[in-house]
C-alpha cells in the first residue's frame, strides 16, 4: 500500500512538473470548452446573427416592396438588393447565406392565389448549402413576411378588393354544378367583401394581419442550393475534409518541429552545423521536406474523400493544388517556427497542440466560421487556417476559379510561410551554449 501511495505521489509530481501535461490536461479543455460555450450560448448574438441575404425584386409591386422592406427591417437579417445573377454569384461565393428572387407579377399573383383565383407565384430561394441552419431561418422569415404582406393586400389593399370581386363573379358565372366546397367559398368571398365594406367603406387600405380564412397559400417556394453549377449537388464532406486536412497538416508540421528539437538535443544538430551548410539552406531543406510530407498527408486525405465519399473539385484544379502546396508550405514553416521558439520537445508539443487546435477551430475547421460572432468572424481573417479552409471550400464545392478563388488564399498562405520562415531564421538558437 505504501508503495502504491509512493507511486501516486511520484506520478502527480511528474505531471505537475511537466508544462506539457499541465497545458494539455488543464488549460486546453478549459479554453476549448469556454470558447464553444460562448459560441453556442447566444451571448453576443445581437451582434452575431445578422445573416447576409440578397433580394432580387423583379416585380416592384407594393406587395413585393413590402416584403423586401419587411425582410430588411428584421433584426436577424442584413438585406441587400441585387439582380438575380449577382445574387446567385454572391451565394455561390459564400458572401451571402441566401438570396430571395421575387418574380415579375409576384404581388398580384400572391393576392390572387390567396383566394384561389390563380396559381400561386413561385419565389426562388437560393441558398448556400453549407449553411443550412441559417438558410432555414431565412426561409421561415421569408414565409412570414410574404404571408403578412399578401394577406394585408388581400384584405386591405385595393387589389384585394378587385380580386375578391373578380373571383366572386367568376364563381357565380361558372356553369359547373354547385358543390358544398364551392358554396362555402362563395359564402366566404361574400362575407369578406361585406367585412371590407364595413371596415373601410369599400375603399380598402386598412392594414390587417388577419389571415384569409380557408385561403390558399399565396406563393410557392422553390429552394435551390447554389453550388458550383446547376445540377451539382452539395457534398458536405468537402468542408470537413478541408478542415481536417489542414488540421493534420499542422500536426505533421508539429512532428517535424519536434523532430528538429530532438535533433538539437542529440548530436545530429552538431553534425548539421559542423557541415559547410548555410542556415538558410538548412531551414529551406527542412521546410521543403516538411511541406512534402504534409502534402502527402493532405493529398491522401482528399484522395480518400474523392474516391470514397464523392468529394469533387468543382472549381479550378490548379487552384486546388496551389492552395494545397501553399498550405503545406505554411504548415511546415509553422513547424520550424515552433522549433525555433520552443525550448524542449515536451513543453513545445503541449503548447503547440493548443495553438494548432485554436488555429483550426478559429479558422472554421471544426464549425463553420459563420457561427462565430461578427467580430470574431472578422478577426479570424488574420489566421492562415481560415484562408486555407475557405480557399479549399471555394475551389471544391463552390466551384471557384484560379484567380478569384485560389490566388488570394494562396498569396496569404505563401506570405505566412515567408513570415514564419523569417521569424524562425531570426529566432533560432544557432549556436550551442
Amino acid at each position, binding site marked *: 500500500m505504501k508503495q502504491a501511495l509512493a507511486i501516486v505521489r511520484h506520478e502527480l509530481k511528474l505531471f505537475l512538473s511537466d508544462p506539457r501535461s499541465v497545458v494539455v490536461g488543464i488549460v486546453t479543455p478549459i479554453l476549448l470548452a469556454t470558447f464553444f460555450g460562448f459560441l453556442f450560448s447566444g451571448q453576443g448574438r445581437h451582434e452575431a446573427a445578422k445573416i447576409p441575404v440578397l433580394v432580387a425584386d423583379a416585380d416592384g409591386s407594393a406587395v413585393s416592396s413590402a416584403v423586401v422592406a419587411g425582410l430588411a427591417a428584421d433584426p436577424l437579417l442584413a438585406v441587400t438588393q441585387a439582380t438575380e445573377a449577382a445574387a446567385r454569384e454572391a451565394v455561390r461565393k459564400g458572401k451571402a447565406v441566401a438570396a430571395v428572387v421575387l418574380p415579375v407579377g409576384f404581388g398580384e399573383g400572391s393576392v390572387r392565389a390567396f383566394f384561389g383565383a390563380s396559381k400561386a407565384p413561385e419565389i426562388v430561394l437560393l441558398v448556400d448549402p453549407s449553411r443550412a441552419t441559417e438558410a432555414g431561418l431565412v426561409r421561415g422569415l421569408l414565409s412570414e413576411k410574404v404571408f403578412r404582406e399578401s394577406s394585408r393586400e388581400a384584405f386591405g389593399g385595393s387589389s384585394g378588393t378587385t380580386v375578391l370581386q373578380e373571383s366572386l363573379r367568376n364563381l357565380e358565372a361558372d356553369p359547373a354544378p354547385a358543390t358544398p366546397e364551392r358554396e362555402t367559398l362563395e359564402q366566404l368571398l361574400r362575407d369578406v367583401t361585406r367585412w371590407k365594406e364595413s371596415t373601410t367603406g369599400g375603399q380598402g387600405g386598412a392594414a390587417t394581419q388577419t389571415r384569409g380564412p380557408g385561403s390558399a397559400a399565396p406563393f410557392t417556394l422553390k429552394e435551390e442550393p447554389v453550388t458550383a453549377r446547376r445540377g451539382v449537388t452539395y457534398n458536405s464532406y468537402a468542408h470537413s475534409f478541408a478542415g481536417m486536412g489542414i488540421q493534420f497538416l499542422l500536426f505533421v508540421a508539429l512532428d517535424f518541429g519536434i523532430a528538429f528539437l530532438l535533433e538539437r538535443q542529440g548530436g545530429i544538430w552538431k553534425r548539421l552545423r559542423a557541415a559547410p551548410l*548555410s542556415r538558410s539552406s538548412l531551414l529551406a531543406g527542412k521546410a521543403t521536406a516538411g511541406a512534402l510530407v504534409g502534402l502527402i498527408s493532405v493529398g491522401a486525405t482528399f484522395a480518400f474523400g474523392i474516391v470514397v465519399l464523392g468529394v469533387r473539385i468543382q472549381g479550378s484544379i490548379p487552384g486546388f493544388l496551389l492552395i494545397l502546396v501553399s498550405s503545406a508550405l505554411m504548415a511546415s514553416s509553422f513547424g520550424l517556427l515552433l522549433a525555433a521558439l520552443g525550448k524542449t520537445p515536451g513543453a513545445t508539443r503541449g503548447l503547440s497542440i493548443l495553438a494548432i487546435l485554436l488555429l483550426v477551430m478559429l479558422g472554421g475547421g471544426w464549425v463553420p466560421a459563420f457561427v462565430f460572432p461578427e467580430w470574431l468572424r472578422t478577426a479570424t481573417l488574420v489566421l492562415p487556417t481560415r484562408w486555407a479552409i475557405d480557399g479549399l471550400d471555394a475551389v471544391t464545392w463552390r466551384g471557384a476559379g484560379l484567380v478569384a478563388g485560389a490566388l488570394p488564399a494562396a498569396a496569404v498562405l505563401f506570405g505566412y510561410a515567408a513570415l514564419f520562415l523569417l521569424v524562425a531564421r531570426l529566432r533560432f538558437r544557432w549556436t550551442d551554449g
Partner: protein
Amino acid sequence: MTPALEVSGLRKSYGAVAALSGVSFRVGEGTIVGLLGPNGAGKTTTVSIICSLLPADGGEVLVDGAPLAGDTDRAKGRLGLVPQELALYDELTADDNLRFFGALQGLEGARLSSRIDDVLRLAGLADRRRDRVRTFSGGMKRRLNLAAGLLHDPKVLLLDEPTAGVDPQSRNAIFESLEALRAAGKAILYTTHYMEEAERLCDRVVIVDHGRVVANGTAEELGRLLPAASGPELDAEARAAVALLSARGIAVPGVDGGKPRLEEVFLHLTGHALRDDR
C-alpha cells in the same frame, strides 16, 4: 611546419562566467592529442568553437593555417566531428545515415559510395550496412558514429568522448581504428575522461581546468609536474617488489618504476574536489 589544427588564445564567457580564458594548443598531422579536464573545465566549449558550433569571444582557430570563415566555408570539410551523443537516425539503416551525412559534406555518386564502403570497413560494420541502426548494440552505434565523422576524409578529427558506454571489444576496435587513422596522417583531438585511454592513445595531453590550459605535453613530460615527494617513501624490499611487478607488466600507481600514472598528474593539477557540470 604548419599544424593541422592550431588553437590560440580562445576566450569565451557565458555572462559573468568565463568558460575559456585563453586556451591554446596545437595538433599536428599524424598525432593524437588528448584534451582532458574535469566537468565544466571547458573541453566541450573548446571543441564547439573549433567546429563552429559556438562563436568565440576572442582567440583564433586555424585549420591548415587558415581560419574558418562562416557557415559555408568549404574548409569546414577538413574537420570531422564525432559528437559525444550518438548522432544517428535510429530508424534509418547505417547506409542511409552515412549517405545523408556524406551529402551534407558535399559527397555524391561513386565517391560517396566508395567512402561509405571505406568507413564501414574501418568500423567493422560492412556486413550490417542495410540494417536499421536501432537494431545495433551500443558499441556498434559508437563505431558508426565514428564512421560518420570520417566520411568526408577530414584532415582533423575531433572526438568527444567516443567510447562512452561501450563494451571492451568495441572500445578496442575504436582504438585500433584511431591508431590506423593516426598512421594515415590524421590529426586527432581526443576528449575523454578515461585516463588510461589517453595514456594508450595520445601522443600529447592537454589538461584544461577553469578554462585554462594547466598542462600540455607528453605523458612523460606531464609526469614531471608531480612534486618529487608525491610518491611514497619505499624501503629496499618495497622497491624490489615494485621492480618485480613492473617487470611483469603490472603498474603500481605513483611508484611504477618512476613513471607516474596520468590520473595522478590529473588529480594533482585539478584537485580532488568534486566537479559538477555547469
